[in-house]
C-alpha cells in the first residue's frame, strides 16, 4: 500500500482551508464572537466616605484603574466631586464623573460596546446622568436615560476601528435618607472589544460606600 502524500500545492491549500474552516466553525458556535467574549473581571476599586452634616464637603478624589494587553490600553476612573446638604433637592447629594478611555495599540482593535451600570442601593437613592453632561469620542450613543434608581446604562460603540475612544459621564447621586444611614452602590464600567484575534469583555467595578454617621 502506497501512501500518496499531498504535493506541496495541496499542503498549501490545506493550510488555508483548515484554519478558515476552524475559524468559521468556531464563529458559528459562538466562540470568539461579541456575544460570547472572554470575560475579564478586574479587581474592584473600593471607596468609602463618612456622610457629614457640613453644608458642603469638597472631595475631589479620583479612583483609577487600568487594563492593558497587546492590542489596547484601557483606563477607567471615577472622580468624586463634593457632598452637600439638601438644597434644591430634598436629598444629600454627591456629584461625580465617570471616565472610560481605550487607546488602540493595534490597527485591528475595535470597541464594540461600552456599558455603564449602576447596582442597586439598598437605601432609597437615585442617580441622575444628564445627557447634556456626557461626552463621547469616537463612540456612538446607543441608549441613555436621564434618571435611574438602579441599572442605569449607557451603551456606546466605536465608529472606527484601529483608534481609541473615550466616554465621560457626569452626574449626581441623590441620597433620600438621613446622614445616619449608609448607602452603597456598585458602578460597573464594562467594555467589549475585539483585539484582532478574540473578543474580550473587561469589567471594572467601583464599590462606593457612603457611611452613615
Amino acid at each position: 500500500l502506497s501512501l500518496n502524500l499531498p504535493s506541496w500545492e495541496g499542503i498549501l491549500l490545506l493550510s488555508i482551508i483548515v484554519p478558515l474552516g476552524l475559524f468559521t466553525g468556531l464563529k458559528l458556535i459562538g466562540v470568539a464572537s461579541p456575544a460570547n467574549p472572554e470575560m475579564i473581571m478586574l479587581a474592584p476599586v473600593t471607596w468609602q466616605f463618612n456622610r457629614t452634616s457640613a453644608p458642603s464637603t469638597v472631595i475631589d478624589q479620583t479612583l483609577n484603574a487600568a487594563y492593558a494587553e497587546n492590542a489596547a490600553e484601557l483606563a477607567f476612573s471615577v472622580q468624586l466631586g463634593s457632598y452637600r446638604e439638601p438644597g434644591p433637592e430634598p436629598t444629600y447629594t454627591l456629584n461625580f464623573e465617570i471616565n472610560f478611555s481605550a487607546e488602540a495599540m493595534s490597527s485591528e482593535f475595535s470597541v464594540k460596546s461600552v456599558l455603564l451600570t449602576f447596582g442597586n442601593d439598598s437605601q432609597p437613592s437615585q442617580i441622575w446622568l444628564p445627557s447634556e453632561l456626557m461626552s463621547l469620542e469616537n463612540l456612538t450613543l446607543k441608549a441613555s436615560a436621564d434618571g435611574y434608581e438602579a441599572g442605569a446604562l449607557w451603551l456606546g460603540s466605536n465608529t472606527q476601528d484601529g483608534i481609541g475612544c473615550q466616554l465621560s459621564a457626569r452626574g449626581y447621586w441623590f441620597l433620600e435618607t438621613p446622614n445616619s444611614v449608609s448607602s452603597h452602590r456598585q458602578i460597573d464600567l464594562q467594555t467589549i472589544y475585539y483585539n484582532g484575534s478574540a473578543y474580550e469583555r473587561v469589567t471594572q467595578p467601583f464599590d462606593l460606600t457612603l457611611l452613615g454617621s
Partner: protein
Amino acid sequence: LRRQLKVFSIATLLLFSILPLLSLPAEATGNSNWSMPRPTEYRHFYDNISSAVISSDGQTALTLTVANTTYIPASGGMDDSLAFQVNVAATTREGITYNWNSPPYGYSWVTVSQTISGFSGDNSCVWIPLNFTVLFYGVNYTGLWIYSNGFISFTSGNCAATSPTSLPNGNLKDTIVAPFWKMLKLSQGGSIKTGHIVQSWPGDNGLRDYQVFTWDTIPDVNGYPQTFQLLIQDRSGSNLFAENLIYFQYLSVTTESVPTTIGGQDRLGYHGTVHSLSGISNHQALGLTAENGAGGYGYRLTSLEYRITKSDLHAMLLLNPLYEEGWNVELNSSGDKHTSWWQQVIEAGATTLADLTGVGEVINGMYLLYDLTAAYAETEYIPASGDLVSANQNQNQASGYVVCESLDSSCSDGAMYGCPFDAAFVNSVYWYMCDSESLNHTITVTATASYEDWNYDVSQVSTSVVLSMHVGQHYLDLQTASEHADGTGAQNITNVPVWVNGEEYYSAPITLFGTHNTNYTVSCQSSIWIGSQRYVFHIWSPSPPGASANPQTFNLTSDLHLTATYYPDWSLNVSVPGFGNRMGHDRSQWDSVHRG
C-alpha cells in the same frame, strides 16, 4: 394744517405707546430681580426670589418663586452652578364673586321635619355630612357646620365665635353662608331641622336635589321667634363643577335694630358679600350665586409653564426630571414620597408671598392654595409629570410644562370642567456657568398660567424674575455671638469678638449697640471704612436676607452671621487665596478670614 397734522401724529403715537401699558395685567411684583456676586465656594443663599401678578381680567393670580438658591463650585468634572427650585403656582379663585338675585321659582317654602340634635345651647354648632359635594368659592366641601345663630360654615366648628359681623371678614378665616346670622336663643325654644328634597323648579332643567336647613321659630334676644331656611342645590350631573346654587327663604323674621348679617364669604375672608337687612321681608326668597365664568362655572387652569432664557453661550440650564412635583397637575404613577421637601417648597412660597408688600389680594388667594397643597402633601406625594426641556450652551431657552388636572376624584374623569381652580408646579434646576469664573451671567425665569372659561376660550398670565451672577465682587463672612449682647435696656456694646470661619480672629470690626429685652434688638454697623465709604454688610442670618442699610437693625436671637460683599477696586486689606492676582491686595493680614 401741517402743524395740526404733526400734533395729531405725535398724539396718536403717544396714545398707541400708552395703550399697551394700560392693557398690561395689574402687576404686583415683589423681589423680582436678584443679582449677587459669583462665589468661589459653596454657598446656600436661602433666598426666595418672587414675583406675583393678577391677570388683567382679574380672574387669575400667579406667583413665581425661585427658592433655595445654592451655589455649587466646580468639582467632580462639573462647572460651577447655581441650583434652585422653580415654584409656579396659580389660582383662578381670584375672580370668583357671589352676587344676589331672585330665584327663578320665587318664594316657595319647604317644610322639613328632621330635627338636628347635638346643639349645646346658644352659640353652638353641629357637624352635618352632606351626600353631595358643594363647590363654594372654588373649594369642594362634603359637609358643613350648622350654627344655632343662623349661619353655616364649611370649614370650621369654632362655635364660640358667633357674634354677627360684616362680611368679608379676614379675621374669621372661615367660610360663612349666613341666611340670617343673629344672636338666637335656641335654649329658649324652637329647633333646627334639615331635610333632603327632590324638586324641579324653573331653571332647574329637570329634577334637582336640595339639602334644606331650617331655623324654626327660634327666639332672638328680644324674644321674637325667627323662622328662615337655607337651600343648597346638588349640582351633580350636568351642572357638575359649577358653584352650587344657594337660596335663602324667610318665613317669619324681624329686622329690628339687632345686629344681623345676611351674606357669605370665602375661606380666607377675602371675598364675600352682604345683603342689606332692610331689603329683607317675610315670604321672600334670595339667591346667592357665583356669577363669574358664566353661571358659576368659573375659570379653570389648563397648564402651568416656566421658561428660563439666557443670552450667553457659556451657560447651560439642566432641569432635573427626578425632582418635579405638583398639585392639581398631571402626575407620574411613581409613589415616591418627598413630603417634607414638598411642604418646605410650599412654605417657602407662602413665606415669600407674605414678605411681599402691596400684593394683598395675591397673598390671600395664594395662601389658600398653599394651605390646601400642604394638607395634601401631608398624606400623599406623587411626582409631577411635566415636560422638561434643558438647554445646552448653544440653546437659549429651557422650559418646564405641566398640564393641570384636578386631583379631586369627582373631577378627574376628563370631564368638561375637570380643570382645577388652582395648581402648583415645582422643579429643581441647575444653571451651569461654563467658563473660568470670569464672566457675568443672567437668566430670566418666566412663569405662565393658562386658564379657560366654560367656552374653552384660553387666556394667559405671566410674570418673571431675573437672576444675575457677576464677577469682580467677593464675600466676607463674619460671625459674632449673642451672649455678648446680654443685659436689658439700651446698652452700648463694643469689643465684641468676631469669629471668622469658626475662629476668633479679630476683635470688633463691627460695633453692636442698643439691646433690650430677651430678643435683643441690635444695630450693627461696620467699623471698616474704605476711603470715605463705610463697609456695607448684608445680613444673611438669623434674619432673612435684608437690605444693606448701615447700620442694620434686627432681632438677635442666636449667633449672628454677617456677610459683606466687597469690590476689588476698593482699598480693602482682604484677599482670597487663589484670587490674589485678581484682587491685587495685601494678603498678609486677612488670608484666613475671608471666603470667596
